[in-house]
């Protein structure tokens, strides 16, 4: 399965890609009219008129001994009527320069051909060149509408059961890993990684409460990367059906005394950071409050790794 198709099963944010994919992959064979009414080239133009009236159609392929030889339409019939030649055989009036559609080609390709050539219908042939149907703009519209309906139904189904994505894949345990990179000193984008993570959680169907808890804790860690690190860091969020793990790691400078850093009100933030409202010394306290479990490993000169675990309430992700 294509990656995009896989993602689109996960939930809310990609109904358009799902619809797009369905429409793009819709084959002519699915929307064409079949079986098709045909006529022999030996028949008279008057017979064409009769067939069109009976079947309420405006054109038909001309077939001799199972071979497609031409196309006859109302325009040809009008010409014959004007000349009073409705007794003449079809072969004198039919179009032999045929513009065809393949039954296995995408509908959009065939539609483009209808538009660029201006013809009213395309006889549809299979790989062997055998006539299998006929395609008009009406067929295309009806087919696309049906595909849209199907896509909406599928998307709706996927949204109703977000957990199914995790359960559908063959593995002992499946998870989704989201990575966000945070630059040191980038106050302008402070909170962006957390906001994106929150959005992603909502997209896969997490409850707003859970998304908010994760976002607040991740925000504090993200700001720490911006304020304190030597070279920024990264946020890895691993989403499992029953819990979410967010790991925030950097490459230094490291925290000399982790226990001290965890005390409410303790801060080493610069004056610049404090002026922007940071440095309350509440970051790790907030994280502890929001996460169900958290741990920090830090070595001066090596870096810091913060791990936060959020339990997912039953059926909330």
């Amino acid at each position, binding site marked *: 399965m294509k990656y995009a198709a896989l993602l689109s099963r996960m939930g809310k944010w990609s109904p358009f890609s799902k619809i797009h994919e369905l429409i793009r992959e819709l084959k002519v064979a699915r929307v064409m009219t079949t079986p098709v009414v045909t006529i022999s080239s030996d028949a008279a133009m008057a017979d064409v008129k009769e067939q069109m009236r009976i079947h309420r159609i405006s054109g038909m392929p001309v077939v001799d001994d199972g071979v497609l030889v031409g196309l006859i339409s109302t325009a040809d019939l009008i010409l014959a009527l004007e000349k009073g030649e409705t007794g003449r055989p079809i072969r004198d009036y039919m179009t032999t320069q045929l513009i065809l559609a393949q039954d296995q080609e995408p509908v959009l390709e065939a539609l483009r051909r209808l538009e660029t050539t201006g013809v009213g219908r395309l006889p549809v042939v299979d790989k062997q060149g055998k006539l299998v149907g006929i395609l008009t703009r009406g067929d295309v519209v009806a087919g696309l509408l049906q595909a849209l309906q199907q896509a909406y139904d599928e998307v709706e189904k996927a949204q109703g059961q977000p957990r199914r994505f995790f359960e559908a894949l063959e593995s002992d345990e499946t998870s989704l890993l989201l990575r966000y990179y945070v630059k040191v000193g980038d106050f302008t984008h402070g909170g962006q990684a*957390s906001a994106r993570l929150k959005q992603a959680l909502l997209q896969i169907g997490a409850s707003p409460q859970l998304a*908010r808890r994760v976002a*607040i804790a991740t925000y504090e860690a993200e700001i720490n990367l911006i304020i304190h690190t030597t070279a920024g860091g990264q946020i890895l969020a691993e989403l499992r059906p029953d819990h979410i793990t967010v790991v925030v790691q950097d490459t230094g400078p490291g925290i000399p005394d982790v226990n001290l850093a965890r005390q409410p009100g303790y801060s080493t933030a610069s004056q610049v950071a404090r002026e922007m409202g940071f440095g*309350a010394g*509440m*970051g790790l306290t*907030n994280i502890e409050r929001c996460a169900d479990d958290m741990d920090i490993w830090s070595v001066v000169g090596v870096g810091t790794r913060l791990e936060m675990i959020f339990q997912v309430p039953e059926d909330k992700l």
Partner: protein
Amino acid sequence: MIVREAVQNLNLTILAGTGPLDQEVTGGYAADLLSCVMAGAAAGNLWITLQTHLNVVAVASLLGLAAVVVAEGAPVPPETVEKAREQGVVLLSSPLPVFETVAALVALGIHGRGT
């Protein structure tokens, strides 16, 4: 009480986010330290502050606040206004200092968590 009523009663200036003014206000919170706001403000709250940096918008957005009220008519940088617009965060300006702004909101019936 919806945001629009607070805007009208306190004569607040709308800097950004004219769209979501019909949101229900669930309460209020005042502080300038972002981590305190993160810990103390609830979704749907009005946040009264003197902070005007870009990160104010990120905090408001993450918490799902009803609006940020910048007190004392503190000048708000255009990039903050722009960001608020982008993210659909309602950004308001009050001519009154924090204390008076809060007092006026309380008089309207908007309360904090403890009251």
